[in-house]
């Protein structure tokens, strides 16, 4: 059993991305091009790292789980926006699947938040200004990038974990991300579910170091992430 924290730290809706999202929507200031606003003041346990002044993911297994939590926050926020403002001529099946994926990413995000408890990093602010949510090409292209990135991130993070139970949890999530990636790829180009841009000549999927993942994900995050305390092997 994953036992990072006791039950005292159940998900706090006041700091959750979902809340900030709906609040923003409620305020009627949602623009596809602007960043989400979150209540940063509530992150009482977040350390400010001395590396780049960003949100410190922490060290050891906790740091790796926070790294995953950061990525899941990004993905969940993206799909929430996709379903909130569907692109033109979205098919019923695409909408159903993208809704499924949104729910999976929210489940992942909330899981990490609950499991990490007081050790969880704050809700992150995202920046989707580069995404045109009215365009199928832009949305699915971004989804493909996020899912492939997520797969490579989990694949690269497995070895950073010490506790085998956390490794199993990461394994339970990464294969679902790979299923997402395969479907999104096929939706863009039929038959591209595992083409040469995803799988190398040895039949292996990609794996990336946290720094490389965050360099890519960082373009979609307003909040800076400090991964300098993560384990490196």
């Amino acid at each position, binding site marked *: *059993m*994953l*036992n990072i924290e006791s039950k005292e730290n*159940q*998900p706090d*809706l006041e700091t*959750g991305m*979902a809340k900030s999202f709906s609040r923003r929507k409620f305020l009627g200031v949602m623009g596809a091009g602007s960043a989400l606003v979150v209540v940063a003041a509530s992150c009482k346990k977040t350390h400010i790292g001395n590396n780049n002044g960003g949100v410190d993911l922490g060290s050891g297994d906790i740091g790796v789980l926070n790294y995953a939590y950061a990525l899941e926050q990004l993905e969940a926020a993206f799909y929430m926006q996709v379903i909130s403002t569907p692109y033109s001529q979205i098919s019923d099946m695409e909408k159903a*699947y993208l809704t*499924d994926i949104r*729910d*999976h990413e*929210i*489940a*992942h995000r*909330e*899981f990490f*938040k*609950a*499991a990490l408890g007081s050790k969880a990093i704050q809700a992150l602010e995202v920046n989707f200004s580069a995404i045109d949510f009215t365009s199928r090409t832009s949305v699915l292209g971004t989804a493909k990038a996020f899912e492939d990135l997520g*797969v490579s991130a*989990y*694949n*690269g993070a*497995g*070895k950073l*974990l*010490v506790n*085998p139970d956390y*490794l*199993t*949890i990461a*394994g*339970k*999530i*990464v*294969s*679902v*991300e*790979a*299923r*997402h*990636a*395969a*479907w999104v790829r*096929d939706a863009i180009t039929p*038959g591209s*579910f*595992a*083409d040469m841009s*995803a*799988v190398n*000549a*040895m*039949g*292996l*999927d*990609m*794996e990336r170091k946290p720094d490389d993942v965050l360099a890519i994900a960082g373009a979609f995050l307003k909040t800076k992430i400090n991964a300098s305390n993560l384990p490196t*092997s």
Partner: protein
Amino acid sequence: MNLQNILTEIENTDPEVYDRLDTRRNAMKSFAKTSGKIALAAIPFALGSMFQKAYASPTAPKDLILDTLNFALTLEYLEANFYIKAVASGIIPSGDSLNSLTVIRDHENEHVNFLKTAITAAGGTPVSFTASSFDFTAKGTFPNVFSDYGTLLAVAQTFEDTGVRAYKGQAPNLISNNDYLTAALQIHSVEARHAAHLREMRKMANLLVPSGVDVKPWITLNQSGIGTSAVQASYNGEENVTQAGVLITNIGGQNISAAAASEAFDEPLSKEQVTAIVTPFFA
């Protein structure tokens, strides 16, 4: 030499030492039995053998890794041989369908080669199988596996979903070696991509899909989406909605159905479970 002090010292260092040896009382008994009448000088040896019992894992790390890689290689041989026959069967529609199964076949062959090389490099002996090692009818359960397209896709989907669960279950056995663990994870997610694609192929072809069941790229509850109970063991347990003690359904006040909660996490299978599933496919 004060035996009591030594044991206390060990107990302080490793509070679980007696769990490893059943109980403290049994440990003392077992130690007394073996060392009761031996000379004082021999005690360290007696202690040594007791520690071996307590600390030696049933399989040493290197052997565990090699066993795990060979188990993976066995599954890859099964899949590779299946797709070789599938692609050659002549019943797969040309175009996207045949192209996809060819891509998957090639990946499985690459996995076989990769694992063979890895096992050899690690000083092990790779297991070896040939086409005649397999019975893809699973002892008559799927007599038309290479003559009925729906059956072929159903078996393919089951192999991939099972493979994903198998790698997931074995990953902790590789945690002591970064390179093998990472490679196994890199194979694991490719199998998941295959599984997702095959599930979509089955949905589109609408063959052997039970009425009222929506086959999706992800696994909903314990639904195989296949109109036979013969594959059910590969899906049992996937309905799990509690992860590490955290209930995922409606987590954090979010509207997450049990179906979505089960889809969001794939579940591992043990080596024994996987072996039971694939054994009928070996001749």
